[in-house]
């Protein structure tokens, strides 16, 4: 009669790679290895008395030396010098094809779980936007390049949507909400970045106006995606309400941890790079971080009160705020534009505003009735309007673009 311990250990030993997955990985390894060698390697007889890697290693060291092949080997990401060099490139740079044609495709192919797959596509969609932004800030964004970037962005964004749908179909409401929330945060950040950038380049003469034209094209695309991402996320949040209470509680607790991590990440990030931001941008970031912390606290209150669905939504919102802020800090430094403090208007068409903030936004609206609080729908008005916004403390922060 086996002891419980023995039974447990037996059960654990049963865990293994499913055959099809084992084969799939094996196939990937083969592809990877094949791409590591541009010259066919002669078959080498290996002594049967040696074991493990030692045997083929002795052989290996003799054959895998040609400098040209090493260069190609290093292309395959994971720290390779060439691949790393390709990472920051833009359309027009020599190594750009390696970045998109190779590094990214391998990365996408290697993601297994639906969550990871969707996340990779979300990342790549964002990379296209970043490239467009960088090019525009360098006056290199012309029509054909923009068209390519936008096409690629759209492909990846479509994959994200499909990924979200698949997650929901498989019953992973939690995962679907997460992916769409993250993507939404990123899209919102880029919407802000593209508008700011657009305003900046417009003032740079003829060339600037061309860049601006291209930027506006992308901006419209991003705004549309943002709206549908918001809608998808809100639907996921509603659908989550249909799950069992224990499931929602678990999801809320998980989201609390995630939001907490994101907030402390952005705080640390801010501390680290604070000196690279001007005073106004710093203030704007601090206000946003305070926002995220406040929403988080509201979520905790809901959690204690047993309102798990509401708690989940609030935590997810706090996470988005934090993520959004982080992206904006990065862009502000990299593309050199100042961040503005837009108070409650930040979350856009968020119909889930917690009761606490209603007062603030009402006062805000009363003070500035002409100011459209709804960030997402401001696309119909020109996105380049310079907004004078009253800071919470009463000072006026004029929007200044770049240096």
């Amino acid at each position, binding site marked *: 009669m086996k002891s419980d311990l023995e039974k447990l250990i037996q059960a654990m030993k049963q865990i293994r*790679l499913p055959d099809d997955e084992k084969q799939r990985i*094996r196939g990937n390894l083969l592809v990877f*290895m094949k791409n590591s060698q541009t010259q066919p390697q002669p078959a080498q007889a290996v002594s049967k008395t040696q074991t493990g890697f030692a045997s083929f290693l002795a052989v290996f060291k003799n054959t*895998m030396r040609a400098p040209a092949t090493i260069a190609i080997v290093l292309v395959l990401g*994971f720290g390779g010098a060439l691949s790393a060099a390709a990472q920051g490139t833009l359309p027009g740079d020599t190594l750009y094809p390696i970045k998109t044609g190779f590094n990214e495709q391998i990365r996408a192919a290697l993601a*297994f779980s639906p969550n990871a797959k969707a996340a990779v596509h979300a990342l790549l969609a964002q990379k296209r936007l970043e490239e467009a932004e960088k090019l525009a800030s360098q006056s290199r964004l012309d029509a054909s390049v923009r068209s390519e970037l936008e096409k690629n962005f759209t492909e990846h964004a479509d994959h994200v949507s499909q990924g979200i749908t698949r997650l929901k179909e498989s019953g992973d409401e939690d995962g679907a909400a*997460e992916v769409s929330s993250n993507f939404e945060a990123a899209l919102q950040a880029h919407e802000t970045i593209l508008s700011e950038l657009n305003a900046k380049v417009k003032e740079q003469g003829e060339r600037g106006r061309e860049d601006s034209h291209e930027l506006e094209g992308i901006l419209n695309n991003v705004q549309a995606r943002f709206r549908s991402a918001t809608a998808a996320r809100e639907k996921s949040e509603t659908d989550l309400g249909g799950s069992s209470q224990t499931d929602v509680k678990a999801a809320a607790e998980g989201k609390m941890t995630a939001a907490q991590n994101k907030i402390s990440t952005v705080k640390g990030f801010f501390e680290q790079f604070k000196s690279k931001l001007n005073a106004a941008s710093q203030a704007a970031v601090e206000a946003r971080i305070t926002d995220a912390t406040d929403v988080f606290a509201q979520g905790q209150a809901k959690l204690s009160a047993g309102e798990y669905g509401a708690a989940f939504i609030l935590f997810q919102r706090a996470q988005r705020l934090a993520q959004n802020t982080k992206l904006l800090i990065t862009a502000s430094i990299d593309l050199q534009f100042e961040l503005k403090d837009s108070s409650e208007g930040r979350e856009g068409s968020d119909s889930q505003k917690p009761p606490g903030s209603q007062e603030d936004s009402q006062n805000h609206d009363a003070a500035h009735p002409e100011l459209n609080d709804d960030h997402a729908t401001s696309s119909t008005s020109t996105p380049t309007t310079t907004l004078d916004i009253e800071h919470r403390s009463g000072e006026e922060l004029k929007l200044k673009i770049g240096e």
Partner: protein
Amino acid sequence: MTNQEAFLKSYDEHADAIYRYCFFRVFDQDRAQDMVQETYLRTWEYLSRGNEIRNPKAFLYRIARNLIIDQSRKKHEISLDELTDQGFDPGVDNTERVDDILDARPIASHIQQLEPLYREAVTLRYINELKPQEIAEILDESENVISVRVNRGINMLRKILNA
């Protein structure tokens, strides 16, 4: 046997064990699979840079272990690569699930109650069936420390089961 064949042979032999090791750290099938693949990819890359590997099995476990540690750290640390010249990483973060373990399996719930240090030792010893000496090499500890850890871990596990 060519280089590739030998490498693939080691995959055929050890992939399951590496998978088991990873699974009982992250408790997620998909992620454990990702890690197995990543472990072997990095090993191949390491070899292709002309390096030597004295003990292939230990090497594989070590790479897998480092991957796990890296991923669980990512949640808490700011990546310093974020703002380098190599471009942004918008930080789409799907690693939050490492500790978010809601596996319904009864085995998982028992083994999870064990502290990570002991869990690892017990897993390597009884699930991966490695000798204390092998474990010592992977974890860079003395054999003694490992034996003690394994025994304590097993005793704790017994208590958990009988609770």
